[in-house]
């Protein structure tokens, strides 16, 4: 195949314990470490492995957001992507509008495969890949743990609730990746230097003529309910007694 398009979202790093602002207006993101959504990092890695096997010519990483997302795109380039596209907007982008942005880029780039993370760890929506596949009228293989390309088809193993489901899809297709697909590579310093010279196109969202979808309003944020403080028991006898007290055994 020729091109693989990979989506990459800038999110609060997975190690950060997120706090809700005291006025309920959102979660605190000021001064918080930002990273590539971990699932998207696995998607980049998979695209690079496909290219390195000789099954693709070009890997393009794409992000939607403010110019800050250049940082994550540069990381994708340092991992080995050939070029990057940043669709710039200062506004929050809902899932359907995001899918429409990818659809507009697909019309420009005609990729054979779009690889996305199965969900972003900020909004935990798990929607964009499925929506894109619907708009594009192409197959979707979500929650993928293995991906085998054979000519104009792909065989995908999906992690589903009861086990593993194997599907075959015609290309082009959208594949959203799960955690066990691969272990993303570490970026080395010379690669970071090299990545600075790779092309990074910035396209204002308005230039893509994408119809803005009606969003879901986020009215109020609150912290989750805290659980009551528990007890530490000394031994198994104490544990069994505590479980008995609660009528659990």
């Amino acid at each position, binding site marked *: 195949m020729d091109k693989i398009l990979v989506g990459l979202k800038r999110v609060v790093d997975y190690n950060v314990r997120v706090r809700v602002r005291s006025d309920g207006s959102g979660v605190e993101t000021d001064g918080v470490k930002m990273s590539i959504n971990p699932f998207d990092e696995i998607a980049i890695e998979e695209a690079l492995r496909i290219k390195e096997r000789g099954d693709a010519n070009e890997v393009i990483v794409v992000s939607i957001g403010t110019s800050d997302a250049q940082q994550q795109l540069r990381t994708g380039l340092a991992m080995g992507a050939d070029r990057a596209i940043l669709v710039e907007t200062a506004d929050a982008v809902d*899932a359907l509008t995001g899918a429409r942005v990818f659809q507009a880029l697909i019309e420009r780039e005609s990729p054979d495969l779009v690889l996305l993370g199965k969900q972003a760890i900020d909004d935990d*929506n798990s929607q964009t890949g499925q929506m894109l596949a619907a708009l594009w009228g192409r197959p979707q293989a979500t929650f993928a743990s293995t991906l085998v390309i054979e000519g104009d088809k792909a065989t995908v193993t999906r992690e589903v*609730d009861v086990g*593993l489901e194997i599907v*075959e899809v015609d290309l082009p297709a959208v594949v959203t990746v799960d955690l066990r697909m691969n272990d993303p590579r570490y970026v080395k310093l010379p690669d970071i230097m090299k990545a600075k010279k790779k092309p990074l196109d910035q396209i204002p969202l308005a230039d893509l003529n994408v119809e803005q979808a009606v969003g879901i309003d986020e009215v109020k944020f609150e912290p989750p309910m805290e659980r009551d403080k528990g007890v530490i028991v000394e031994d*198994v006898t104490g544990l069994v007694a505590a479980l008995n007290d609660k009528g659990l055994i």
Partner: protein
Amino acid sequence: MSKILLIAEHANGILNSSTGKCVACAAEIPDAEIHVAVFADDGAAVAAQAANLASVTSILVVDNPANANLLAATLAPQVVAISAGYTHIFGPSTTFGKDLMPRVAALLGVNQISDIMEVIGSHSFKRPIYAGNALVTVEAPADKTLVATVRVASYQAIAGDGSANIDAVTADTELPGHTRFIELQAGKSDRPDLQTAARVVAGGRALGSEESFDLIFKLADALGAGVGASRAAVDAGYVPNETQIGQTGKIIAPELYIAIGISGAIQHVTGIKDAGTIVAINKDPDAPIFEIADIGIVGDLFAILPELQEAVSA
């Protein structure tokens, strides 16, 4: 008035309990008329089970050989084809519903609400974000079809004393052939299903090997419990992927949850926060799992587990 269409999840002629949980959520919407759609090659048996769900007035059965395996790409256009007149379309936040519902939403040109955990009003709901570290109240536009998934761990399945009408309907639409089901490798287990079990015993990386995980199975069997695992244990290959609990695995709400050798990363904790009682067994007294455990015991799991198994078997 709200007219709600739920997409039934089923396999091998058995209705999945996630459907009854979706009904429980939909029934909290004021003045709602609830219908359930069953897509299958022969949906009669599943429809009969769905007809028993309280609060449901109508079952729509869409029989089609193409529905022998439920693929989002073939189901989504059929859902859209029968969706006229409905204000809401709901599915479960299982891998089935997560795969299907956004495809339906995009075909309808609307955004989707994922993981409803509480109904505030007909178009207003509460849902978790950031691995459950924040909850957000969301409002969907009232003039558009509302597509959503229901966080099944937040609801008990509705009672089974209903008697809905069952009608065969056809979904008049062209189905794509670009996605083909090959096979399902389902884990074989006689133990209670992780997502519905009243008790769950789960193991983590500290088990150290696939063989040692046998200690978890033995304790689970002594308790009649389902078996779960942390991501680390699944990544290490001790147990298959369907046992993973957490942000990206299963969200569960058993009465009793026993976490063994699991440190308690936020991504794991979000999957067990709704458990009635959480027990943690870990040798590290500073493990974060103790922050949310109701009962904790600090010590070597290899010494504790055989003793505990014997005590609960007695």
